[in-house]
């Protein structure tokens, strides 16, 4: 039973989430009735049902086809049969290692209902046999790969394999793109093709692009962000010879990249902290509360916690942080930092453990991470500061409006509301802008 005792590194604290995946000894002696070909993608282990595999291949020469989605590498001549080649790494938005020229790509030829199709992976590993009852359903924490493309998870010799459902990923049925949040209905693999021709007015183009953004990334264009989308369309069109054609996940990602606020996914640095500090309301009553929906893996929440601790040394500080990404938010309380990337401001708030930095227990205590969906929130925690950056723009319009009016009803004029750099809260509410520098902020009039 040593397997249960082996550390599972980051997942260790949450091993219960995987408890059901642990085989026990009686099960291990069971009949092996499921075989899978295993391979690696971006350093992780995956498997695919051997019954779907026609052969293991090394693609030494294939032909690129213009005007196809980025994940289609080209076509391959398999002893006279022409088959399409899909690069799984591009499809799943994983890094593609630099290929030595002339080195053949490794992959599999799959026999799916729709015919033969080739896939490229980082490395083919081996054939593994397991009792099929050990296969566990995918857990929502894998949602960022896309739950619907996973048929199960299995542990074998201390390695966790994600079994991909190739029929669903590559079969004839429309497949949701890997980036799509699990709640939105499945869309087509690539969005509607949008081309700005002379006949389409600028407004029409914006609506078409908005539909693509919504189906591929969950970004919803409303009055909150319409000004940014309009300006971005103009700069996109200028950079692409006057045409606007946004159809793939990669293009959507590229389009939205300038949307995200500074310090997304990392700690705020001194400039941003100082600017927010000048906007903070004066202390009243000895308690300072902040609300941080969409906290992801917690960098933003800890930045807020440290800022409030430094700004209100005598007050009791509390930060309410929440996200729907179960894995991200589960790991957030134990966030570790790369010492080389921690701004000096945070030094008094962190401790060194081995070669990593972590926040001190007294800082961790004031941040309360919740697994929660903003769309279900009816009552806000008490708050003097709301940090809701690039979160509203990814909610359906009615939810954007509901959350904004809830904020208006349940907070007072002293509450500072920090939004994403390109979100115009005043367009959805009676709030007035109090932005300073790169910090976009609002207050109720």
């Amino acid at each position, binding site marked *: 039973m040593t397997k249960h005792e082996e550390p599972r590194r980051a997942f260790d604290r949450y091993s219960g*989430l995987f408890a059901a995946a642990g085989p026990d000894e009686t099960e291990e002696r069971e009949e092996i009735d499921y075989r899978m070909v295993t391979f690696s993608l971006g350093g992780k282990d995956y498997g695919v049902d051997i019954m779907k595999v026609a052969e293991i291949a090394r693609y030494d020469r294939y032909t690129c086809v213009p005007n196809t989605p980025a994940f289609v590498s080209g076509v391959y001549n398999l002893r006279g049969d022409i088959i399409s080649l899909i690069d799984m790494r591009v499809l799943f938005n994983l890094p593609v290692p630099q290929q030595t020229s002339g080195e053949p790509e490794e992959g599999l030829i799959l026999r799916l209902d729709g015919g033969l199709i080739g896939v490229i992976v980082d490395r083919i590993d081996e054939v593994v046999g397991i009792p099929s009852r050990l296969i566990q359903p995918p857990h929502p924490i894998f949602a960022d790969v896309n739950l619907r493309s996973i048929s199960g998870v299995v542990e074998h010799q201390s390695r966790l394999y994600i079994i991909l459902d190739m029929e669903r990923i590559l079969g004839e049925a429309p497949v949701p793109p890997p980036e799509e949040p699990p709640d939105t209905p499945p869309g087509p693999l690539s969005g509607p093709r949008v081309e700005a021709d002379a006949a389409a007015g600028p407004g029409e183009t914006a609506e078409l692009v908005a539909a693509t953004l919504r189906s591929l990334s969950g970004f919803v264009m409303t009055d909150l962000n319409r000004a940014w989308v309009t300006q971005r369309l103009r700069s996109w069109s200028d950079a692409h010879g006057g045409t606007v054609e946004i159809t793939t996940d990669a293009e959507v990602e590229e389009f939205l990249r300038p949307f995200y606020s500074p310090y997304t996914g990392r700690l705020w640095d001194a400039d941003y902290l100082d600017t927010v500090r000048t906007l903070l309301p004066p202390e009243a009553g000895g308690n300072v509360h902040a609300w941080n929906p969409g906290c992801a893996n917690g960098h933003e929440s800890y930045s807020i916690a440290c800022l409030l601790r430094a700004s209100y040394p005598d007050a009791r500080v509390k930060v309410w942080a929440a996200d729907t990404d179960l894995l991200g938010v589960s790991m957030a309380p134990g966030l570790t930092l790369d010492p080389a990337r921690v701004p000096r401001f945070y030094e008094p708030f962190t401790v060194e453990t081995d070669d990593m930095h972590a926040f001190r227990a007294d800082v961790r205590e004031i941040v309360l991470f919740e697994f929660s*969906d903003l769309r279900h929130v009816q009552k806000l925690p008490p708050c003097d500061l709301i940090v809701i950056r690039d979160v509203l723009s990814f909610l359906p319009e009615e939810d954007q409006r509901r959350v904004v009016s809830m904020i208006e009803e349940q907070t007072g004029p002293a509450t500072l509301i920090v939004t994403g750099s390109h979100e115009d809260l005043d367009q959805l509410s009676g709030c007035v802008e109090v932005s300073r520098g790169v910090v976009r902020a609002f207050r109720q009039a």
Partner: protein
Amino acid sequence: MRVEYINPFVEAAHDVLKEVLQTDVKRGELYLKSSATPVLGVAAIIGLAGDVEGRVLLDMSRTTAIQVASAMLAGMDMEPISELNEMGRATITELANMITGRAVTKLHNLGFAFDLTPPALVTGDNMEISNANVEALIVPMELPQGKIEINVAIRERG
């Protein structure tokens, strides 16, 4: 719901069901629900108080309840039941108690102080339960006897 609370409930539900039923338990995907939640037919409710306020609901169909209770009784060399009689209701109530008790013990070891109310069992058709402003975490468990949903709604006390 606070992330630290999730795992104790998932682990407790899985372990207790596996132990008392001596069978395989598959955990489905966790998800969040708000507002009125339909109840499958038999629901054991336990209130939570202390650092938090909220409740745990163990929800299953009548058929599942009878089969689960029978399996638990068989494990104690007692006669199985064919309808949800007093013994069956007491057995399901006890199951809810065991799961919640195990979870609260785990939480206590993590430094969270929770108190439990005595369980209540509610049965009927077309029932809904509403959570006043509290989002519920649903932990579905698949058993040979059917599906049991552990529905946990907890909020911090302001």
